[in-house]
């Protein structure tokens, strides 16, 4: 069964360093997303991406963050100058159609990348 894969599964970094989280979405999906979940808190939307550009972004997704689809398969989240409060599980997801659309808008989530900022 096709699945979303994320690397690394866990990354530890020093405050102020840059981090790149990588995702390989399901191959025929057109919409890509990043969500994050701080320990003990809810899953929060960061950004959605379609047709090589950002569709929507939340207030969390400030200038510190960027996304890119450098080739036909990878979807990356870059966090510049990491802060302690960036420590969280970051989930990548993909869908065939817009989120919530019946039958085709199902989001498939990866297993997440745990980021620990020291």
């Amino acid at each position, binding site marked *: 069964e096709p699945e*979303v894969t994320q690397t690394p599964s866990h990354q530890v970094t020093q405050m102020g360093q840059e981090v790149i989280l990588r995702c390989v979405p399901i191959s025929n999906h057109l*919409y890509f*997303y990043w*969500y994050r979940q701080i320990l003990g*808190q*809810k*899953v*929060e*939307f960061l950004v*959605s991406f*379609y047709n090589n550009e950002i*569709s*929507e972004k*939340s207030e969390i997704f400030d200038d510190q963050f960027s996304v890119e689809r450098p080739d036909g398969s990878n979807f990356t989240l870059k966090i510049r100058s990491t802060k302690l409060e960036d420590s969280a599980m970051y*989930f990548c*997801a993909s869908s065939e159609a*817009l*989120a*919530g*659309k*019946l*039958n085709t*808008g*199902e*989001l*498939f*989530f*990866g*297993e*997440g990348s745990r980021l620990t900022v020291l």
Partner: protein
Amino acid sequence: TQLLEQSPQFLSIQEGENLTVYCNSSSVFSSLQWYRQEPGEGPVLLVTVVTGGEVKKLKRLTFQFGDARKDSSLHITAAQPGDTGLYLCAGARYSTLTFGKGTMLLVSP
């Protein structure tokens, strides 16, 4: 700000009991999805409800979408230990899913 409030936050029951968890919002969503999340894993979709008043059944799980498309409930009949997990509701608007904080369900044998 679209908020989804889930209740209860935590529920501990014995195997065989029935339970209902709720998801409420003041916002209208185009659809509402229920996910289950295991520790250390990403959310996995259980069901999507689209039409106000819609009821969907998935084995022992019954999902209902409120008439006004602002709230939803999940009812589990005869809960089993394998049902243990975090149940998340998420409302969809455009390309965004807004998640609730979840209900942590613990079913003891």
